[in-house]
Every structure is written in C-alpha cells, then in structure tokens.
C-alpha cells in the first residue's frame, strides 16, 4: 500500500500523494470506529455521516472566534431556548418517574414535547433572526470559543458520543437491518439540522478559513530556515543551473511546492499519532476480557445474557465508543480541509464508502480496518485515472471521434462507483471475512 502511494508521489506529484495519504489516515480512523461497532459487537451503524458531521461541527465551534455582536444580538434568546430545552427534558423525566405507565402518560408526554417545541420555536425566532442578520456575508452565526482547533478532536468525540448515546437509547433494540435504516435516517436528520440552523453552523454558507494546527504556506515561504532546508534538499538540482536569476526563480518555485508538502507532512504526523494511539487502544481492548465478552455477545447474545453479561449496556457502550472515534475523524477532516461545508456530507461518501472499507479490510480486525481505509480510499481517488487508462487501452483501435469512446471517456468519474460496487460484491462472495480476517488467539 505504501508503495502505491509512493508511486503516486513519483509519477503524479508529492502533493497529491500526501493528500491521498492524509485522507487515507482519516478514513482509517473512521473505519476503526465502524469496525469497533460491527466487528467487535455486530452492531450495524449506517449513521457514520452524522457523527462525521458532528465532529466537523465541533471543529468549527471550538476554533472560530466568538462573534461578539451576534452574542449581543441574540445570545440571550438562544440561552433562553437552551434553558427551555433543559426544563422540558427535566419535566419529561419527572413525569416518567412519577406516574405509572398508561395511555394518559404517553399522551401527556407527547403534548409536553409538542408544546415545548412550539414554545421554543416562537421564543427563539427573533434571536435567530437577529443573529443571522449580523454581517451575513461574513458571520451571521454565534461563532465558537476561539480555542486551538486540536481540542476539537476530543470535543468532536464527545459530541458524537453524546449523539450516539441518544440514538443508542432509542434504536439499539431494533433488529439489525432496522437499526441500519434507523441510523441512516437519523444521520440525515442531523445533517438537515446542521445545514439549516444557520445561527449555529452558518449552514450551507459554509465556514471557511478555520485555524490550523500547522503553519501556513505563506509564512513558511518567507521563513529563512525553511528556505535553507529546501535549498539543502535540492542542492543537486540547483547546482546544475548556472544563471543566478534562474537559480533564484527555481528556488522560489521549489519553496512554494515544498511549503505545501511540508504543511501536509505536519498533518500526516498529527494524524499518524492519532491512528497509532487508537490502534494500540483498540488492540488492547480486543484482547482484553472486555473484548472477549463483546465477541461472546456478538456470537450468541442469549448465552452471554445468561452468563450475567448486561447485553443492552455493553451494546450502548460500544455504540458510543465507535461513534466517538468517527467523531474524531470528522474533526480531523475539517481540520485538514480548513473549512466546514455541511452541503458536502452525503451518505454515499461518508456512510457507504466507509462500510465498503470495513467489509473489504476485514471486520473485527483493526489492521484490516486500517488496510481497508487505505486501499479503498486510494482506489476511490485513483479510479478515474485507472479507468481512463483502461478505456484508452481497450479502445485503442477506435478513432478518437467515435461517439461511444468519447462518451466513455466523459463518464470516467463514475467508474469509481462501479469499482467500489464490484469490489464489495467480489469480497462478499469470495472472501466474506475481508482481506485480513479476524484472528482470535485462544490462549
């Protein structure tokens, strides 16, 4: 796998190779999250997109500076609404505890929820309008806390874990394929909220120019030690050029290229640390008594239950853990892009592709998950060049003007779907346990 990425570096460019590598690492983290749920516990979670987006939201809320004006305009109304939500939840809890289960209780809870939603909607409306009116081209939202963006990786995990707690409480009792549908739909609801609650997330207007944990290219290009470094690296290339002006121009070009490679390398380092930490933790967990218990629950729920294991609680726990890891990946993704675009969260890319990674890599095996993330993401990116090459190869005898050939070449980007689908089908059929199957050592 590394060889393939190195080949991209040599044949296409180091920039592309590193961006593929970084996204491979992020995909690997997402896949590990999904793998914990599916491989360890047999829980099917098609809501990965929602947790990814929540992680991204955490990155925005942590790193963006607070918009003082917006807080003054509508902060009070928003805090009031939050307070109302808390009161509503407490009232519902009180009703649930105090009264016995009956039809009247169910209806009254429904009435509390509906009237609460209406109340919140009408009380928060002026505040939301005021916030969204504050310089809408630039802000129009509350902003965040102005902390370093790295913190968002942890907060993203907390957000995603919190959502997973609610979803798990609601949906975990369902049979497998219903759980899949329910989580898929809930993640769509999450995306709808993120897209349309502009006061919180700026919605489809996107948040750009987030802070970075890595230096900026522009700064690097003017830093002495970096220019010297690039000069040292390329001394062989530079010494060939005789003319001083040409040499300076070549050096400038190299510094510009080198700066973006350097920034990407910084990200790679950070991501690699996360992947390694997660790998160590998940490996430890897999071979711990807890991991054995999860496998027992997965393979025979009733037997595990009879042995005194709390299946419901463990399912909820692992659902939260896996989702939290996906949340970290979501925050990492936004950190590396430097922008948050709620419109780009689509189930194809953020849910189903991740599942292809899990299945192809090997469910239940953490190395398999990482491998799946790398292989599938690499193919996803390089599918277009590969299929272009194949089309040209097989239609070499046909003239360029042929309508069929032109049409095929035009639709090259869609061959990646075909590749993914066929790959998934073949793996499911001939190697149902994935490339690296689950290995359980019995000691």
């Amino acid at each position, binding site marked *: 796998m590394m060889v393939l990425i190195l080949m991209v570096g040599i044949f296409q460019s180091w920039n592309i190779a590193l961006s593929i590598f970084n996204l491979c690492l992020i995909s690997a983290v997402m896949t590990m999250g999904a793998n914990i749920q599916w491989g360890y516990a047999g829980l099917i979670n098609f809501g990965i997109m929602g947790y990814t987006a929540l992680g991204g939201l955490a990155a925005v809320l942590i790193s963006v500076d607070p918009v003082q004006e917006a807080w003054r305009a509508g902060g009070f109304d928003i805090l009031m609404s939050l307070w109302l939500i808390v009161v509503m939840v407490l009232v519902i809890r009180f009703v649930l505890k105090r009264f016995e289960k009956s039809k009247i209780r169910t209806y009254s809870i429904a009435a509390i929820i509906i009237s609460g939603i209406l109340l919140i909607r009408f009380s928060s409306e002026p505040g939301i309008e005021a916030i969204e009116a504050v310089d809408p081209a630039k802000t129009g939202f509350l902003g965040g806390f102005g902390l370093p963006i790295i913190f968002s990786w942890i907060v993203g995990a907390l957000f995603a874990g919190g959502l997973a707690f609610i979803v798990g409480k609601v949906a975990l009792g369902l049979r497998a394929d219903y759980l899949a549908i329910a989580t898929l739909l809930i993640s*769509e609801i999450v995306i709808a909220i993120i897209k349309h609650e502009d006061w919180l997330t700026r919605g489809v207007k996107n948040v750009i120019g987030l802070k970075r944990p890595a230096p900026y290219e522009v700064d690097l290009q003017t830093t002495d030690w970096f220019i010297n470094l690039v000069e040292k690296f390329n001394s062989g290339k530079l010494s060939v050029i005789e003319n001083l002006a040409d040499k300076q121009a070549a050096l400038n070009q190299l510094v510009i290229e080198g700066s973006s490679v350097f920034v990407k390398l910084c990200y790679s380092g950070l991501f690699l640390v996360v992947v390694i930490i997660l790998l160590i933790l998940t490996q430890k967990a897999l071979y711990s008594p807890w991991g054995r218990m999860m496998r027992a629950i997965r393979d025979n729920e009733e037997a595990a239950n009879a042995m005194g294991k709390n299946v419901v609680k463990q399912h909820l726990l692992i659902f939260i853990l896996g989702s939290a890891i996906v949340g970290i990946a979501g925050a990492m993704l936004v950190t590396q892009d430097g922008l948050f675009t709620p419109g780009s969260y689509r189930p194809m890319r953020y849910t189903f592709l991740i599942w292809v990674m899990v299945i192809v890599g090997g469910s239940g095996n953490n190395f398999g998950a990482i491998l799946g993330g790398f292989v599938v993401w690499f193919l996803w990116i390089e599918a277009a060049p590969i299929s272009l090459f194949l089309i040209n190869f097989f239609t070499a005898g046909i003239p360029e003007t042929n309508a069929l050939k032109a049409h095929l070449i035009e639709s090259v980007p869609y061959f990646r779907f*075909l590749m993914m689908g066929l790959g998934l*089908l073949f793996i499911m059929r001939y190697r149902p346990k994935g490339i690296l199957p689950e290995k359980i050592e019995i000691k």
Partner: protein
Amino acid sequence: MDFVNAIILLLNYIFIPALTYGSQLALGAIFVTLIYGILRFANFATGDMMSFGTMATILFTWYFQSLGVSLGVLPTALLAIPFGIIFMILYMLLIDKFVFKYYRHQKSPPVQFAMVSIGVMFVTQAVVRIIIGPADRRFFDGEKFIIKAREFKEITGLNEGLALKSTQVITIFVTIVLVSLLFWFLNRTKTGKSMKAYSDNEDLALLSGIDPKKIVLVTWVIAGILATIGGALYGLDKSFKPFTYFNNMLPIFAAAIVGGIGNPFGAFLGGYVIAFSEILLTYAYKKFFMYILPESMEPNSLVQLLSTDYKFAVSFSILVIVLIYRPSGIFKGKVL
C-alpha cells in the same frame, strides 16, 4: 366565498401535490415491502433500481421521439414505460442470478443481504451515470396542464386558482390501476396466494409444494414493474436526476416501515402518510388563515410549523417514532 377560496388553496398547495407525491412513494414502498416480505432483506438499492428503470424509459422515449411517434396530448414516456419495464426486469433477474441467488442458497442472515444490496447500489449507480450521465433531465412532452390556475380563476370567479398538471392526474390514475391490479393478483390468483404463503412461512409453503424459484421470479417481475412505473412517474412529474432518486430511497423506506414492512397495503397507505405529513407540517398557513379568520385575527407570521428545509426530516422523525413505539408499523407487518 372566502371559505371556498381557503378550500381551493389547500387543494392546490397541499392535497393534490401530496396525493401525487404519495402515489410515487407508495409504488416504491410496495416494491421495498415485497422484496422484504418474500426475499427477506432490506434493499438498499431501491432508489437506484428505480433510476435504472426510469433511465431505460427515457432512452426509449428519446428513441420514439426520434422516430416521430407520439401520443398526442399524452407524454411519449407512457409508450416507453413497457419497454423500460422489460429492461428493468432483465437487469433485476441478472443481478439476482449473479448476486442474490448465492446468498439465498447459503441462507445468509438479512444483514449480509443488506450489505450485498449496497454493492448492487454502487454498481447500479455507476451504470446509470455512465449510460445517461448525472445531469438533471426532463423527458416530459405533450400537454402540460389540464386546468391552468388562471383559467380556473376566470371560470369560477374565485381569487384562488387551482392548477392541475396532467402528470399529477396520470400519476394518480396509473397508481390506482396498478395497485388494484396488484392486490387482485396477490389476493385472488393462485400465484399471488402462494407468494403470501411463502412470505408468511417459508418452510410450510415449501412443504405444500410451492416452487420457490417461481415465487422469486414473479417477485422480481412485479418489483420491476413497480420500480419502473414509480420511477418514471416521479421523473415525469418532477425531473430525472440519479442523485435525487438515491435520496428518495429514504422516504420510501420510511413509508414501507411506517405502513408495516412486509404488508403491501400498509406500504401503499404509508406512502400517503409520509407525503401528507411532510407537506402538512411544512406548509405556511398564513394565507389560509387570512381567508377563514376575520380580519382582526389575521396572523402576522407565516404560521409554518417547520421550515421547508426540514421536509425530509419530518418523514424520518415519523419513522423513528413509529420504530420506537410500534415497530411492526401502523398496519401490523412482520413483528420485529
């Protein structure tokens, strides 16, 4: 007079659009429910199969248009639908033979089927996009309106117009005919009854001499008809775009589950439940109240329960609520 105006307003903006959208969802939902009831898996390729059928219909429509064949005031697509259906059924049988059959013989768990159907989803999506491209396409021709809003106003002298698109009438009419035929088939013919028996209890059905191969074949044929017609009607009424079809899978799932999965009649009604609740909850009632309330009580705001951005979220929330409180659906489907 104001009262009549208010009624017409609701008819025009809520009732007729919801009925049309509901019919399109209902066809898809019956497709999902049949596959679930008889082949026993949640088909994640639903939306893309519908877009495949629609694509075949569009290709035939273009072919007929190039030949100069048309149906006059009716859209040419109606003529192309039967050919589209044949293509769709062939594609489905091909997929069944190479993909699903193996897992059926292995008696794989439903989750594995669902995963496999995701593979089929990817492949179908690729095939559709490679053949026809991802663009938004309109393939409607013929007369667009039966009654135009302006004409209606002139005839009746009311303030509110009632526009009736021909695609809406075609959708509702075709749905009624198709669904009645389907229920007649399921309830009255021998094959239909044996399908129901197979869905209820596979082993008993096999013991009583029902041929599983035939059941599977008939199921795919019906599924092909439903998918193509449902997809083509949606495409005629709105427009054809592969991505929209993929997204439509979600409300269709919601409709099938709300109605009680495995129960075709429930799925049929579920389509309307979803469509009506989506539109009722996101419609701004300001104008309606302006007609029926005296002037002094007229509302200032839009009187909209939820903004239209949350249209999809409404149907998903309904689904989640149903899943929690009544997982077998409103009209008792399979108990989960």
